């Protein structure tokens, strides 16, 4: 077993363990932290595949931003586990159905590699190969329309989310930062010249 293979199995084992714990652990904060561990391990696996850009972006976006917001929300929830358990048997059939569908889909992907004769493994590229440049070239030429449509959809989502929070309520004591910054000394302070001692009369 080469060292690379050892690293692969190590991170794969951590990934599977973390993914299992995400759904089995009771404390939701622990579940989110295990999800973070799962993302991190899969980023390590991507690094082994020489997909540095994707691996680092996975860490940057999912671990560094999305999961922080997740954690932020989950930590503030006051979750009563007993109440959540009540509907367990009622939702079990739906859950099983969804679970089976996911397993079947993943199985279809994997079957290719187990049943069909193995194709030639991709050759490792040299150290001069820039993954990032290739990805950029592909994304901005061949896939430019899907890419820009996705960007437009995200922009619409941002605008919608912000529009939902914009409420003008009368009577609130909102501050106007522009007015605060524009303030001058003479608006706030009056300098008074006074003698240090009272002059004798």
């Amino acid at each position, binding site marked *: 077993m080469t060292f690379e293979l050892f690293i692969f199995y190590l991170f794969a084992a951590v990934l599977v363990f973390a993914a299992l714990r995400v759904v089995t652990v009771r404390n939701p*904060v622990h579940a989110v*932290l295990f999800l*973070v561990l799962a993302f991190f391990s899969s980023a390590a696996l991507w690094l082994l595949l020489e997909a*540095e*850009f994707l691996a*680092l*972006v996975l*860490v*940057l976006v999912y*671990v*560094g*931003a999305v999961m*922080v*917001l997740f*954690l*932020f929300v989950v*930590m*503030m929830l006051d979750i009563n586990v007993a109440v959540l358990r009540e509907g367990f048997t009622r939702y079990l059939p739906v859950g099983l159905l969804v679970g089976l569908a996911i397993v079947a889909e993943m199985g279809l992907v994997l079957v290719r590699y187990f049943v069909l004769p193995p194709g030639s493994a991709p050759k490792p590229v040299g150290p001069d190969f*820039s*993954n*990032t440049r290739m990805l950029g070239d592909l994304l901005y030429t061949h896939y430019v329309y899907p890419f820009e449509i996705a960007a437009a959809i995200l922009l619409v989502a941002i605008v919608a989310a912000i529009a939902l929070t914009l409420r003008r309520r009368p009577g609130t004591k909102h501050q106007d*930062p522009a007015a605060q910054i524009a303030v001058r000394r003479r608006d706030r302070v009056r300098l008074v010249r006074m003698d240090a001692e009272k002059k004798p009369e």
Partner: protein
Amino acid sequence: MTATLLEFWNGLPEDFRIPVLILLKIVAILVPLMLSVAYLTFAERKIIGYMQIRIGPQRVGPRGWLQPIADALKLLLKEIIVPANANRFLFLLAPVLSIGPALAAWSVMPFGHGMVLANVDAGLLFLLALTSMGVYGVIIAGWASNSKYAFLGAMRSAAQMVAYEIAMGFALVGALMAGGSLNLGKIVLAQQGGVLHWFWLPLLPLFFIYFISGVAETNRAPFDVAEGESEIVAGFHVEYSGMAFAVFFLAEYANMILISTLAAVLFLGGWLSPFEGTGWQAYVNWVPGTVWLLLKAAGFLFLFLWFRATFPRYRYDQIMRLGWKVFIPITIVWLFLEGFAILFHLQPWFA
């Protein structure tokens, strides 16, 4: 003597030599880093002292020079107290998660031409990914402590870091666009040709935003609401004592040094001499590039301390407003302008 040692070394198997060499390089980076952290705390107390017309520490050793050593010894010997209802594992894991990224980020930092531990192609992205993970130490510390003050600090810190990371990321995108590479060494080499060729000039707004976001990202004054001594005692690390606290402290100062060095690398030409292209260069040729880099970084570190002595703490909503409504729009506009400058080959930066 040296010849026999060299012969012995070359006789060793390569599988053994390479890891040993890498480990030695790591030590060669981390030991000076730790010493810098120790003496940065000393410099902070002295400089802020003089700014406030005090003398600062002066009792331990000649002129107080042994003060950081005494502080470290004190912290080493103190007991680590774990609060009664704290989550013990996460409580002790948090400082490790805090210092891990702060140290690992140094692996891609170029100290001179080719003087880098790991010459990674996507070095800048690696740095951004690692610095974005530092927030977990703070959040987990706040949550695992099972204390209201700690939790408030963690919440503030999480919101602040997410906000400023975006502005910081955009500022870094500006630097990588100008440098035409994600590799830090190549970004420095793209700035050759003297002070006016460095990226601080074409990327002036991004340079300011990067450094201010860096101050916010490291939770330093005036953005230190996560600690906020006067409001929430010490914020996320209020329950920590002894070495567990010291590790948080180390991480904060290591991050300050990292942000300063990175600002020097991306915007002030890294290890390049400031006299390049002038008649003075002939007199300073003997100065190694690393010295220039460290001088520039020291300048930024001084700014960190100066800020702390000068500005009152920002209010929380003001911090959020500055991050989301001021910095992010400015960076986006400047990235557009920079794109046009690159398109039209604006001289001398975008040849």
